[in-house]
């Protein structure tokens, strides 16, 4: 076949092709499917990742009081709700004109890094390790967490306990393991008591040690399968991530950094409170998920990748010693080949998990956690933007609040949405590498899912829009000829297009 990867988005003559669907995509958060269109010789002509669920938080947060947002919007997700809890809180900090107290910032940081720890552990050990340890086309009956528990009981136990520890950090700081209330506009509603600190301190050395081991496993997988791991679903892309003022990896706060696919800086330390000047969202008719792009490059070529791989690769250093050492090793490995590999996500994710353990340890030793100055309120503002680096990538929350405290507008750009086009590119590349021209098997189709899982997508979070989105419906006959069409405009009214 001669199609370029880009062409695989839309086949020229879909009516002549055979459709194969992977539905649902398994071992990811949320509901999605992949469709492939193949000709009679099993050549691939179209590959799309569809997000088939529909949420609507941007709409139904409208009309609610602003202080409800951090608690309500986190219900987008059950895996990393803390990300939304904190991003919304940061936006509301702006609304209430707050400069966070040291205690508030550190309690929130610990909550967030607890979240990173548990989410990354969940993804590596529970969701991805079956593919990575048994093989992409291994026996499907064993390719799951139960199979891992039987074959690698110690590893499975570590995965469970790492996640449990992260959840406990969240419980201590947010009040509950899932969907807590600890972060409020302008601060937090509780500190960390001496008893809670000691409870978390007693296991942190073990957690750090297991996280180091996990980095070792990720590296070992690369070493043992160098060609596969280097080339699987590999594609060139721009990147976006947040960095601290000194260029360090910072998952809680910083400025935006974008690089082009050659590693050149497009913008750096960009004030995220004006993100819309550099990032915009495109809409495609076949997906509920939007397609963000860098404004300066446009929708066709301006898409980019976010998440652990971009963050670890494109920060200047990691401000904790073990993770920084692990990063150096990662960057130097095989001439830096892992930094651009889709499966490099797993290695980078484990480096971040180790970093999270180190940050939690540092924070637990900080007496500010026991402070009682929890909330600061300043001059009221109308607009609030909160950005963090969530486990899956850059997360943007943007609200407008009227003078009566009512939310009038909400825009969320979640990590998985940033990665929408990148995930589609990855699966198209995999389709070309492994599926094109071959007789389809379950194992081959799982290769597509392996590429999606590398991004650790959260499809629930990514499909939150609701309202008067522009929409066009076409009625086609069996030959693909258009019979009728109906369009809805931005104002919500329907019309028959010319």
């Amino acid at each position, binding site marked *: 076949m001669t199609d370029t990867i880009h062409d695989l988005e839309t086949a020229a003559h879909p009516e002549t092709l055979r459709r194969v669907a992977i539905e649902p995509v398994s071992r990811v958060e949320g509901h999605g499917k992949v469709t492939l269109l193949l000709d009679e010789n099993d050549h691939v002509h179209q590959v799309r990742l569809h997000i088939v669920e529909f949420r609507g938080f941007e709409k139904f947060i409208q*009309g*609610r*009081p602003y*202080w*409800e947002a*951090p*608690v*309500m919007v986190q*219900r987008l997700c059950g895996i990393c709700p803390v990300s939304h809890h904190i991003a919304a809180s940061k936006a509301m900090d702006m609304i*209430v004109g707050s400069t966070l107290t040291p205690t508030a910032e550190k309690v929130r940081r610990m909550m967030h890094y607890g979240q990173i720890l548990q989410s990354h552990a969940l993804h590596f050990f529970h969701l991805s390790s079956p593919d990575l340890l048994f093989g992409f086309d291994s026996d499907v009956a064993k390719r799951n967490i139960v199979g891992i528990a039987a074959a690698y009981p110690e590893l499975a136990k570590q995965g469970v306990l790492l996640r449990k520890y992260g959840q406990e950090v969240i419980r201590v700081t*947010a*009040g*509950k393991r899932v*969907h*807590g*209330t*600890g972060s*409020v*506009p302008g601060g937090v*509603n*509780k500190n960390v008591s001496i008893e809670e600190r000691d409870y978390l301190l007693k296991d942190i050395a073990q957690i750090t040690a297991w996280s180091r081991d996990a980095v070792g496993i990720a590296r070992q997988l690369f070493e043992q399968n160098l060609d596969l791991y280097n080339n699987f679903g590999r594609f060139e892309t721009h990147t976006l991530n947040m960095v601290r003022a000194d260029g360090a990896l910072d998952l809680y706060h910083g400025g935006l950094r974008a690089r082009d696919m050659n590693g050149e800086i497009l913008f750096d330390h960009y004030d995220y409170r004006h993100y819309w000047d550099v990032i915009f969202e495109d809409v495609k008719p076949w997906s509920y998920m939007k397609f963000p792009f860098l404004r300066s490059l446009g929708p066709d070529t301006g898409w980019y990748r976010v998440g652990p791989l971009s963050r670890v690769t494109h920060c200047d250093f990691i401000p904790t010693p073990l993770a920084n050492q692990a990063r150096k090793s990662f960057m130097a490995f095989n001439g830096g080949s892992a930094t651009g590999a889709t499966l490099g996500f797993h290695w980078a994710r484990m480096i971040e998990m180790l970093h999270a353990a180190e940050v939690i340890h540092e924070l637990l030793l900080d007496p500010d956690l026991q402070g009682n100055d929890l*909330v600061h309120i300043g001059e009221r503002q109308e607009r609030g933007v909160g950005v963090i680096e969530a486990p899956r990538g850059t997360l943007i929350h943007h609200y407008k609040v*009227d003078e*009566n*405290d*009512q939310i009038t507008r909400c825009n969320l750009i979640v990590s998985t949405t940033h990665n929408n086009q990148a995930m589609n590119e990855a699966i198209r590349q995999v389709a070309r590498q492994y599926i094109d021209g071959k007789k389809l098997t379950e194992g081959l189709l799982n290769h597509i899912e392996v590429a999606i899982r590398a991004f650790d997508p959260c499809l629930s979070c990514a499909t939150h829009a609701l309202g008067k989105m522009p929409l066009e419906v076409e009625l086609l006959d069996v030959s693909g000829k258009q019979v009728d069409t109906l369009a809805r405009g931005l104002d919500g009214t329907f019309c028959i297009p010319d």
Partner: protein
Amino acid sequence: MSDTFQLDGKSVPFEAGQTVMQAALAAGHYIPHLCYHPEFKPHGSCKLCTVKVNGRTMASCTMPAEANLSVESDIDELNDLRRTLVQMLFAEGNHFCPSCEKSGNCVLQALGYDLEVHTAGFRHMFPERPLDFTHPDILLDFNRCILCELCVHASAEVDGKHIFAFSGRGIDKHLIINSTSGQLKDTDMALTDKAMQVCPVGVILKKRVGFSVPIGQRRYDKSPISAQALVDAPRTGAVHE
């Protein structure tokens, strides 16, 4: 003549003028209730406190205590009916506990837990009930109103302002604001009003407080409503005429 009655086989003392509910709570016996408030004259509207008195169903908050009554309360038949009443209240309004700031301090939610209400049981009605944001310090979220009438009484009888009232009948009955515009900003409602303190659910809220009380320190985090109600109940006869 005895000064006790029997409640679920136990002897309950009472003072002249007390209701069955008042005497039971004062003696440390819990009868589930929702619209009853020890500081206000009972009006028997929610029916959660229904008991069987000598075989007849009565609202225990309005039923005068009398010697030798035989009262049944904690029996499956009545608890099933109470559970159904709570389910109907959840289905009738828009009660989204996960993001409600009253969660953990809400009487309806606490009753739901205590009566083991695991599902709504009925199709949600999703009524349209716009919020009133107009007052600078007070938010009204009518989605959660259960028509307990406590704010109506508190505003009229304690605050002397008559800010709240009911309008409509049957399923259309709803809480309204007694001002020309129908908005709270055009009343003299103040944060210090008794009406601010009595709402058992999350309708009348002080603005910008939100989730300031952490999980674990909210009213019903430490003990269920069946225990908390006994702590709150007056020990001796608080009689309302």
